[in-house]
């Protein structure tokens, strides 16, 4: 009998007489309840949240990668490129893709050591750190700034080195020379704080960003637009299909007003002229600004000492150089053209404008300076000695500017006690009036030049300022004295101004009252050379009449002194050029307490229709001797070589 017989349990089965149970409803309920739970959850996931999950599914397999645009170049006014784009090569490791076996990994590290010179143990430590932090899916840089040959070798070898790759980022090289560093600035990686802001503008984290100078100010123009490569990839990161590619749009170029030849010439000239006289010794710092009094374009802006901004291309490699520059007491990173110091007699142009405009003097108002010392008697009977630097004899406004008479400008600002009053009814109101014209001519606030690096813009003191600033250290010295107004009138005392402010004021004098905003950039140009927009900052009108400025120009003309004996600025004379100018020799106390002088010269040419303004500054020296001849040479070079 076969077991397949099936005629009941006739073989070896266990008989049972029990009646089957009938309570199977509970089983049916269980079936529907459990499937009900599943259907409920499915409905919740697929119908209620379905579109969210669909979105997450898309994000899961569609990856978007940015392609960085080519950064725009920066050119001088003649089209000479001042920067070039280079690749910054970095060896990177993605720990996730490394082989599992430690021995195999170490073999890769050793291979990497041979290729780029980074110790295998160091790489091992970095990878371990990343994996311990559960960041194995993030690329870690192991060696930055590879030389091009190293990079090429690594690129080739890395195809057989899982997890190791070469990353290329856009970088800059600055071939133009250190004299351009303060103007151009540099680019670098975003800091976390910067990225928090820039992310809003769509910046990728690996995108370099301008850190100072033109690179920073015109970042939006230079940057270009990120491209996007979207692709479908599988769970292992293999590319399945390229979906869409948006090519990056290269950044626009910036065409500067700077004339590279002039910039280099001025830098070299200043550098070669640092040797000084017996009183002051060698100059340590210097600056010069050459700009247009018509448009505010800056043809050259030079600061000595300079530094090489290429050190920021490879910051890790140049740490020592960077530290040395930071330690340098001459502050090479500061732009001396934007750094304020006592302007001295160049400020007399401001005093002249204030005195003429308020009617305190006319150009014909004169004074006989018969002695280098004039004692005036104060209200309390005390004698104040007023000094001049030479016995000028009889001077009017023209000759007072030409010979830079101190006593004449005391008379025009604070007044000679007992003889005449100053600009206002007393010393304090005179200072306030002078301050008003100084500010109208651009002192006391930043000029707004488009390379950054301007501090608060120097100091134009007045009684309120003195009470505020001097009070904490020196309660005795918080009062505004007659002498304060007198010193202010000749650009001494607490007055501080930058070479750029002086140049800007000179431009306003030269053009008859337009206060321009100096600008280094001239135009934004597309990669194919079309002008996208011209840089034309707004100008302000100075509340001084054209006639009064003409009188001041006449004084400056006489200072350089063509066809006549000449004044303090005679050494700026260049045969064939019609130059006008004003010298300045500002006394100041050095850190060690000894007295020294800043040398200034500011001028313009040609006298009749000024095209160019030049301002020269040395931290140590006498204006007429040291700065004036340099200004003359610069103007000569300009006349011969620069097309305005």
């Amino acid at each position, binding site marked *: 009998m076969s*077991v397949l017989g099936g005629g*009941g349990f006739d073989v070896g089965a266990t008989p049972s007489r029990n009646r089957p*149970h009938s309570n199977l409803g509970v089983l049916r309920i269980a079936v529907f309840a459990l499937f009900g739970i599943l259907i409920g959850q499915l409905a919740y996931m697929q119908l209620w949240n379905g579109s969210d999950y669909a979105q997450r*599914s898309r994000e899961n397999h569609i990856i978007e990668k940015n392609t960085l645009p080519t950064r725009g170049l920066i050119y001088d006014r003649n089209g000479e490129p001042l920067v070039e784009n280079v690749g910054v090569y970095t060896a990177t490791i993605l720990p996730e893709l490394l082989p599992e076996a430690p021995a195999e990994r170490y073999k890769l590290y050793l291979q990497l050591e041979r290729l780029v010179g980074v110790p295998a143990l160091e790489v091992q430590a970095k990878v371990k750190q990343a994996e311990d932090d559960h960041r194995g899916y993030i690329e870690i840089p192991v060696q930055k700034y590879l030389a091009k040959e190293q990079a090429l070798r690594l690129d080739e070898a890395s195809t057989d080195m899982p997890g190791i790759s070469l990353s290329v980022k856009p970088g800059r090289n600055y071939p133009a020379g250190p004299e351009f560093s303060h103007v151009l600035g540099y680019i670098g990686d975003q800091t976390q704080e910067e990225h928090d802001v820039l992310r809003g503008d769509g910046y990728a984290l690996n995108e370099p960003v301008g850190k100072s100078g033109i690179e920073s100010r015109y970042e939006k123009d230079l940057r270009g637009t990120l491209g996007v490569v979207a692709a479908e990839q*599988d769970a292992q990161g293999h590319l399945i299909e390229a979906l869409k590619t948006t090519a990056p749009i290269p950044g626009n170029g910036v065409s500067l007003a700077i004339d590279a030849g002039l910039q280099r010439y001025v830098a070299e000239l200043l550098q070669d002229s640092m040797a000084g006289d017996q009183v002051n010794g060698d100059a340590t710092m210097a600056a010069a600004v050459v700009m247009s009094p018509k448009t505010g374009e800056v043809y050259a802006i030079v600061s000595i000492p300079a530094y090489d901004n290429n050190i920021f291309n490879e910051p890790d490699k140049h740490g020592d150089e960077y530290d040395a520059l930071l330690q340098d007491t001459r502050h090479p990173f500061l732009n001396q053209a934007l750094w304020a110091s006592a302007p001295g007699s160049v400020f007399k142009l401001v005093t002249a404008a204030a005195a003429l405009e308020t009617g305190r003097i006319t150009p014909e108002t004169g004074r006989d300076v018969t002695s280098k010392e004039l004692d005036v008697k104060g209200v309390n009977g005390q004698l104040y000695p007023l000094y001049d630097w030479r016995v000028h004899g009889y001077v009017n406004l023209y000759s007072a500017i030409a010979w830079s008479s101190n006593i004449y400008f005391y008379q025009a600002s604070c007044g000679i006690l007992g003889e005449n009053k100053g600009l206002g009814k007393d010393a304090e109101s005179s200072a306030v009036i002078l301050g008003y014209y100084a500010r109208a001519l651009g002192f006391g606030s930043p000029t707004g030049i488009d390379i950054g690096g301007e501090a608060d813009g120097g100091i134009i003191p007045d009684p309120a300022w003195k009470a505020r600033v001097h009070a904490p250290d020196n309660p005795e010295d918080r009062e505004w004295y007659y002498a304060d107004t007198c010193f202010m009138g000749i650009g001494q005392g607490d007055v501080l101004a930058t070479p750029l402010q002086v140049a800007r004021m000179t431009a306003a004098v030269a053009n008859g009252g337009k206060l321009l905003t100096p600008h280094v950039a001239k135009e934004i140009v597309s990669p194919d050379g079309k002008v996208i927009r011209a840089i034309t900052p707004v100008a302000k009108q100075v509340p001084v009449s054209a006639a009064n400025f003409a009188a001041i120009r006449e004084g400056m003309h006489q200072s350089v002194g063509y066809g006549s004996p000449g004044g303090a600025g005679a050494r700026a004379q260049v045969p064939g050029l019609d130059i006008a100018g004003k010298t300045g020799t500002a006394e100041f106390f050095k850190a060690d307490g000894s007295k020294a002088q800043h040398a200034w010269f500011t001028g313009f040419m040609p006298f009749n229709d000024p095209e160019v303004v030049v301002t020269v500054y040395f931290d140590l020296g006498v204006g007429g001797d040291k700065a004036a001849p340099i200004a003359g040479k610069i103007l000569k070079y300009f006349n011969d070589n620069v097309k305005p």
Partner: protein
Amino acid sequence: MTLAYRRTSVFRGWDRFDYLIVLSAVLLVLYGLILIYSGSARTYDGPIASFSNPVAKQALFALTGIAAMLLISKLDYHYLTHYSWVLYGISILSLVAILVVGQSSYGSTRWFDLGPIQLQPSEFAKLATILLLARFFSEHGGDAKDLKTLVISLAIVAPCTILVFIQPDLGTSIVFAAIWLGVVVVAGVSRSHLLVLGAIFVAVLPFAWTFFVADYQVERISVLVDPEQDPLGAGYNVRQSEIAVGSGQLFGKGLTNGEQTQLRFLKVPTKDFIFSVLGEELGFTGALALFALFILLLMRGIRAAQIAGDTAGQLVAVGIVVLILMQTFINVAVNVSLFPVTGIPLPFVSQGGSSLVSVFVSLGILQSIIMRHRAYRQT
């Protein structure tokens, strides 16, 4: 052999054979073949008619399973209950053996590797336990009202449950527990007994958790609670299956069009996570169709329990219904993030020979019970 003899032996009973059970099972297998095809489309690129083709392989296992079902349906299930102690003994031995020599996969030891075939003794142990439970109750008053009977029945289920649990296979041990619960409920357990046992279980649970639950299970369970905790580690499967199912929405992305499946974000898409493939590519409606087939099958199984000729047959049928129900529920629950990841295949649908053949064997036993209900009563 005469024709008449054949009529009374080999061909007897087929008029009572439940063809709806076979129909729903075969439709589920076909559904599974389609999903296996889609789930392996990007990984398998060999010829269609080859036994390395997972679809062909599964189809072959299905035919083997159906043959086994037909054979067993002809066999009187009382033979099986009679020898259930032997089957049970073999089960316990093999479950112990596997802990010593078995093959591990995904941190759990469940397989005997016999060359081309992998044997999973817990599949066999489930049926052996059902048979032994049924025999035990039918020999001891036919019900579970007596506390002593109840405790002994618990002792029958406990060894397998514990051995499976320490493999570790949380899901299968829950299936064992559910089978016991289902059988004793139908066998008329008293509510107070059940409550007392439940209370003891709840009291013991924390200790069991401390001493017996493997770290990987703790991790899987905590990952279920918060899959984002470790998105690239243990939470990966949970998150990917969740995205796959959810993104399928009402009608799915279409067969072989699911990115989660085709781009291999889903792990084991033809096995434990085959439901995620279905959810992604065929959507909510596809899932409802699958559930309808399972419900039809289970209802026919409950019908078998209802018409069974004796307690033993009835309890065997109940055990098999609970077995299929719980495996289905736990597998789908894992796929829809209601249950921690545990290696339970979807009956009839998931790729895998052991599971498919053994589930057809259980259907064979069901058929045997159905085909014999009248024969018993007539005697």
